[in-house]
């Protein structure tokens, strides 16, 4: 195929952009900048790990149905796995977020990395909220009853009906995880492509010498 034709191809353009911005050495690195040496860096991978446990336990719950965990000890245990992994997920993610804020991690063309992280945080809250609505217990009864007023007050309740178990269950196991999953993958790929943000004062000397 001629170079001319290749230039016009979407597939070829995507491949070249991918190879340029995210070569395999960046995607699966064996070195890190020396400054990546603080406990705060652990909370990104901890968040992803907790998400992994959430997805695994959630898949089991999905296969067994929304009421299974009320009726069996194994079910209640899997529900507990889901519950605690969600709790840890948010703890890790909030610490990760605060850490990145104090690092001003959006510096050096990393704005979209921050934005995707922020969207992932908001999407996580939505995903967790729909999870609380589909517990099929007293808690979900009360949360749906109370939450309807908030969504109805701005008209969203017309389409996002928190008292509709079927709708919320579908959103929780399909739509919301899809959004969160896609955003998370993009976020991680951007971290790999752009690299970990350097320390705020890392280039002070260089800049002073150049003055």
């Amino acid at each position, binding site marked *: 195929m001629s170079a001319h034709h290749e230039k016009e191809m979407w597939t070829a353009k995507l491949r070249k952009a991918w190879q340029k911005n995210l070569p395999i050495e960046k995607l699966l*690195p*064996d*070195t*890190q*900048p*020396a400054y990546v*040496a*603080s406990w705060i860096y652990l909370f990104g*991978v901890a968040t*992803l*790990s907790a998400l*992994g*446990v959430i997805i695994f336990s959630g898949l089991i719950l999905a296969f067994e149905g929304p009421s299974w965990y009320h009726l069996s000890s194994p079910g*209640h*245990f899997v529900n*507990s*796995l889901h519950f*605690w*992994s969600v709790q*840890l997920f948010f703890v890790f993610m*909030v610490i990760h977020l605060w*850490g990145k804020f104090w690092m001003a991690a959006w510096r*050096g*063309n990393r704005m979209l990395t*921050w934005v995707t992280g922020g*969207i992932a*945080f*908001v999407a996580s809250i939505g995903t967790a*909220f729909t999870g609380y609505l589909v517990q099929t*217990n*007293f*808690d*979900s*009864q009360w949360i*749906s*009853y*109370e939450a309807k*007023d*908030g*969504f*109805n*007050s701005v008209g*969203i309740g*017309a389409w996002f*009906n928190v*008292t*509709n*178990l*079927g*709708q919320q269950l579908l959103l929780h196991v399909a739509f919301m995880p899809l959004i969160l999953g896609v955003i998370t993958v993009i976020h991680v790929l951007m971290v790999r492509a752009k*690299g970990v943000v*350097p*320390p*705020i*004062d*890392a*280039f002070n*000397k*260089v800049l002073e010498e*150049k003055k």
Partner: protein
Amino acid sequence: MSTRHELESAPWAGRTRRYDILKEGTAALLIITVIVVALSAFFGSPDDKQITFKEWATNAPADFYATSVQELAGTSGSAGYGAPYNTASSGVNVGPFHLAQIIGVKHPVDNVNDFVITPLTTFNNSPDVATALKQWQGADSKTHLAWATAYDSALGKANQDASKVPAGDYGPVPQLATGLLTMAKSGSLDGVLLSQGNYFQNDNTKQTLFLGDGNYFNDQSTAAHLQGDTWGMMNENGRYPGQAWLWLYSFWYQIPPFNNGDSHPFGANADAYIMIIMGILSLSLVCMPLIPGIKALPRKIPVHRLIWRNYYEEENL
């Protein structure tokens, strides 16, 4: 000359250290899994049993009876809610906009028929309830309203004690409420309210609205510290952590003017205003690097000196 931005954007050219991303990921996953398994084994998870209409009618029959009368009279919370359930009121507003009303009735609920009359038609009623049902069905809506409001008012004055309600022109309303109480106690109402004559059904809107119209459901929530004015949005049953990440959302309901439903316009329309505030704050979080002042904080408050302490020492920065 390179600017700071260009230097921070460029691939790192300084010192590096060994880093096995797969090993780190695997180790993290294993450790987190062990922690989650341990927490689950030791603490379990909350699962308070759902409230049924049978439970409500059995434990608080007077409350259920009075709520049934309110549904017939159109004085219950959901009967006067407005959109998206009915047109009884204009609902909350933001300035001149009643957003739910503009969108309209998307989940129609007919409190009289959906909650009381239709369920009763599916039940094997006692003769006096069956007669009352025929009397109701033979009357017009104006008469329905006159009967029901008269009895609702009288029942309210008698502190929901039906035995102390003076004689009056209440039509078949007392018998209908008694019939629905009997049906609820038998457990039949739970299924009928959900199915509404269908085989497949997964929308609990009508059940939830009816349940919320009574005091029993609210009382259970108050006892569990789940009410909105006690940070209920982020609480959980028992001693378990709840949705702590909703603390900011919950916070607004605790402070003036949002915690005073009589305060206009913000308190009376707190749900809408708080939803809008949280929307703006969520957007602000996503766009934080663009907000003047906020984006400068990390440089002004040197938490980063702690994070990169070792690097700064090694590089003598």
